[in-house]
C-alpha cells in the first residue's frame, strides 16, 4: 500500500508539471519545428510570454481543432496555408480579431472580419535534382506540361492532399492554370499520376529524396525548397510559365480559447514586422506579409520574373473538401 501511495504522489506531481499554464499560450503550429521554435523564442524574449506548442501538418491540425471545437485545447493556430484557415472558418473554429497590422495589409492577406491574418506568403516552386536533369538531358521544368515528360516517370514526389496543405495549394494551382475547369485540371493530374513515385504525408516530405536524387523532382513550397538547397543538396528551383500558386500563411485565434489575451498578444506580434523581420536572420525563406518588411535580397533574386498568382481563399475554402475527395478517388486511387 505504501508503494501505491508513493506512486500516486509521483503521478500527481507529474500532472502538476503540465499545469503551470500561468503565462503560457498554447499553440498548434503548422510550421515545422525548426522555423516555429526560433519565432516563439523571439516572442518570449520580447514579451515574456511562453509558447507551448506541438507541430502538426495542416490537415492534422485542422482535424484536431475541429474535433476539439467544444473544448479547445489551444489558443492559436499558427502558420499553414490560407486554404486551411478558410476551411476552418466554414467550421466556425475561429474568433475574429483584428491586430494593429490588420489595416496595413492588402486584402488577400487578411479575412475581412479578421478571422485570420497572414504572417507570410509562400509560393510553390518546381524543384529538380541537378544530376537527374543532367543525366536525362533535361532543362529545369518551365511548364506544367514539362513534368509529363517520359524521364520523369516514377521520379516525382509531392504531398498527399489528405494531410498536407502544400498538396491542396498545388491542386488549386492546377485548377487556376486550367481556368478552374475541373475536368481539364483532373485530366492533367491523372496524366501526371504515373510520374509520381510517392505522395508524402507532409509538404516537405519529398524535398530530401529530391535532394539525394532518389526522386528527380517535385512541387514544394519555396521555403522547403530553399532550405534543401541551403543544406547543400544540388537542386534547381524553377517556375512554370503558366504560373503557379502562392498561399498566404495565416494565424488565427481559436474560438473559446482559454487564454485569449495571450493569444491576441501572439497574433499582434506575428502579424507585425516584429516577427517578420526575423525571417532573414533565421534563414526562413518565407515572403513577409507585412508591407514594411523588406524582402531578403537572395530570395528576391529567386522570385524575379516568376509568374505567381494568389490562391483565392474563398473559392479554395468553399471547395476544399469536395476537391480533395475527388483527388483521392480519381488521382490517388485510380
Amino acid at each position, binding site marked *: 500500500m505504501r*508503494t501505491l501511495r508513493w*506512486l500516486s504522489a*509521483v*503521478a500527481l506531481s*507529474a*500532472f502538476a*508539471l*503540465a499545469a503551470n499554464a500561468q503565462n503560457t499560450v*498554447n499553440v*498548434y503550429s503548422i510550421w*515545422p*519545428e*525548426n522555423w516555429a*521554435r526560433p519565432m516563439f523564442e523571439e516572442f518570449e524574449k520580447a514579451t515574456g510570454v511562453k509558447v*507551448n*506548442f*506541438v*507541430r502538426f501538418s495542416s*490537415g*492534422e491540425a*485542422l*482535424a*484536431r481543432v*475541429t*474535433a476539439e471545437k*467544444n*473544448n479547445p*485545447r*489551444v489558443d492559436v493556430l499558427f502558420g499553414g496555408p490560407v486554404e486551411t484557415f478558410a476551411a476552418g472558418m466554414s467550421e466556425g473554429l475561429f474568433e475574429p480579431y483584428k491586430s494593429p497590422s490588420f489595416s496595413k495589409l492588402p486584402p488577400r492577406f487578411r479575412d475581412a472580419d479578421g478571422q485570420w491574418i497572414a504572417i507570410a506568403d509562400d509560393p510553390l516552386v518546381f524543384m529538380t535534382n541537378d544530376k537527374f536533369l543532367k543525366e536525362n538531358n533535361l532543362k529545369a521544368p518551365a511548364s506544367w506540361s514539362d513534368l509529363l515528360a517520359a524521364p520523369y516517370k*516514377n*521520379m516525382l514526389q509531392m504531398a*498527399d492532399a*489528405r*494531410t498536407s496543405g502544400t498538396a491542396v495549394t498545388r491542386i488549386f494551382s492546377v485548377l487556376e492554370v486550367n481556368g478552374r475547369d475541373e475536368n481539364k485540371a483532373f485530366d492533367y493530374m491523372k496524366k501526371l499520376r504515373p510520374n*509520381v*513515385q*510517392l*505522395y*508524402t*504525408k*507532409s509538404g*516537405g*516530405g*519529398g*524535398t*530530401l*529524396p529530391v*535532394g*539525394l*536524387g*532518389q*526522386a*528527380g523532382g517535385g512541387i514544394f513550397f519555396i521555403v522547403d525548397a530553399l532550405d534543401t538547397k541551403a*543544406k*547543400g*543538396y*544540388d537542386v534547381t528551383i524553377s517556375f512554370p510559365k503558366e504560373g503557379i500558386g502562392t498561399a498566404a500563411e495565416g494565424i488565427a485565434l481559436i474560438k473559446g480559447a482559454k487564454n485569449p489575451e495571450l493569444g491576441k498578444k501572439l497574433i499582434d506580434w506575428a502579424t507585425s514586422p516584429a516577427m517578420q523581420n526575423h525571417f532573414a536572420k533565421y534563414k526562413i525563406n518565407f515572403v513577409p506579409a507585412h508591407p514594411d518588411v523588406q524582402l531578403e535580397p537572395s530570395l528576391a533574386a529567386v522570385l524575379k520574373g516568376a509568374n505567381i498568382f494568389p490562391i483565392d481563399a474563398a473559392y479554395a475554402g468553399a471547395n476544399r473538401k469536395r476537391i480533395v475527395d475527388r483527388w483521392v478517388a480519381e488521382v*490517388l*486511387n485510380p
Partner: protein
Amino acid sequence: MNGSAALRRDPAVAATALVLWLLLALFVVYPMAMLLARVFVDKGGVTFAGVFGVLTDRHQIRAFWNSLLLGALVGLGGTIVGFVFAFTATRARLPRGLLTAIDAAVLLPLVSPPFTTAIAMIFSFGPRGLITYELLGLKGVTVYGLASTLSSEILTYFPIAYLTLRPLLAAIDSNVEGMALSLGASRWRVFRTVTLPLCVPGIANAFLLLFAASLADFATPLILAGNQFPVLPTQAYLQITGLFDLRGGAALSLVLLVPSLAVFLLQRYWVSRRYYVTVTGKGAGQTPFDSVSPGMRAALLAFCALVAASILYFYALLLYASLVAALGANHAFTLAHYRVIFTEGLKVIRDTLIIAGLAMPLGGLYGILVGYLVTRKQFLGRRTMEIVSMVNYALPGTIVGIAYLIAFNEPPIELAGTALVIIACYVFRYGPTGIRTTVALLQQIDKSLEEASQGLGAGSGTTFRRVTLPLIMPAFFAGLGVVFIRSMTAISATIFLVSISWSLITVKILENMTELSLGPAAAYSVLVVVIVFAVIALIGRLLRAFRAPGQVQVASMLGG
C-alpha cells in the same frame, strides 16, 4: 469451491478483484464498446453503413487483402529467418562470443521504434540508394512497395520468432536426435522427421505472433509502402489524423478485428495446447554430437552473419546520420542533432520518461495481481477477467488507440490530453505479458506453500505479500520490462493519444522521418536504443538477484 462463499471469507481478494474489474471496465470494456457504438450506432438506430462502406469500397478491400498478404509474408519470412537463427544458436556449437554478438544484433530491432529500419531502407535502396546505385550501379529501382515493406518488417520482427523458437529448440533432448542419428538416419532425415515436427507448435506460434505484429504496424508502411500498396492500419491512421473521420477510421480498424482475433484465438487455444514434452527423465547425460554437417554449419553461419550484418548496417547508418550535418550532402561531423534533441526535444524526452516510468511499475503490479487472482483465487467472473484482460493485448494498436480516442475525448470520461490516458493505454495493452508470465510461474509453484501460510493464520493479504510475492518477483520484473520497452518504442496506439501537453519520442521520430528531417530522427532513435538497453540491463541484474529461472523470463519479456 463456491464463489460467493469464498468472497465472504476473503475481503482482501474481493476488494482487489472489484478494483481490477472497475479498471478493466473503464480501460478495456468501455473503449471497445464506444468503438463499436461509433461504428454501428447512428442517430439512435443500428447501422451497418460504416462497415458496409469499407467492405464495398474496392480500394479499402484491396488494402484489407494487402494487409493480410503482408502479414502472412512477414509471418512466413520472419519465422524462417527466426528458425534459422534459433537452430544455428542451439545446434551449430558456436563459440560463446559469436553467440553473444548474434544476440546483441537480434536485440536491436526489438528495443527500437518499429520503423527505424524503414528510413535506412529508403537511403539504401532506390534510384540513388547507397546500395542499389552507389554500390551496384542499378538505375530506376523503386524503393516504395511490398518488397521493401516486407524486408523491413521481417528484419524488425523476426527476433520475436527467434526468441520463441530458441528455448524450444534448446529444450529438445539432444539424445532423441542422437539416437536417430546412430540408428543410421542421415542428418537431413533427422532434421526432417525428428527436429522439425517437434518444433511445429513453436513455428505456428511464431508465425501467428509475427502476423499479428505486422497487422498492427502502420508506421513502416506509411514510410515504405508508397501509394501502390495501401494497407489498412495506415489507411485508418490517415483517415483519422488527416480527415478526422473517426467513424471511417473506426470502421476501417474494425475490419482488422476479425483477422487479429482469429489469430489470437488460434495462438492461445490451439497452438499453446500442442506443445510436445521431450523430457525423458533426469540425469540422462546429454551426449554432444554433430547434428549439422560442417558444410551446413558454414552455410547457417553465413546466413546469420548476413542478416546480423544488415541489421548492424542499418543501425550504423542511423548512428552515422545522427552525427553528420546532412546525410548525402554534407558529411561533416556534428553533434548539432543531439544538441537539438536535448534542448528543443527535452520536453518530449521528459514526457516519455515520466510516462514510461509511471506505466512501468503500474503495469508490473497489474500483471502480477491479475495473474495471481486468476490462477489462485476463486471469485465471480474469474475466467471472464482472464479473457477481458487479454483484449487490448490481442488487438492491433491502431484499434486500441482509436477506441481510446473515441471513448476519452469527450465527457462523461474526458481524459484526452492527459498523461493518464497514455499510461492506461500502455498498462492495459502491455501489462498482459506480466499476467501470462505470472500465470506460468504460479503453475510451477505448489499451492500447498500458500495453504500452509493461511493454515497458520495469515490472511490472504499477508500470504500474498510474504509468500507468493517473493516467488513471483521474476514475473513482476518481466512485466515491468515489457511495459517499459513498449512505452519507449510503441507508436501504433498512442499516436492517437498525444496532445499539446504530453507527447512521445516515437511520435517525434515518426514526424521527423515523414518530414525527412533525418538528423534529429536518427538522434532520437539512438537515444531510445541507449535508454532501453540500459534499463534492460538493470532489470536483468535485478532478475538475477531474485535467482529467477532467468533465461526464460528475459526471452518472454521481449517476445510479447
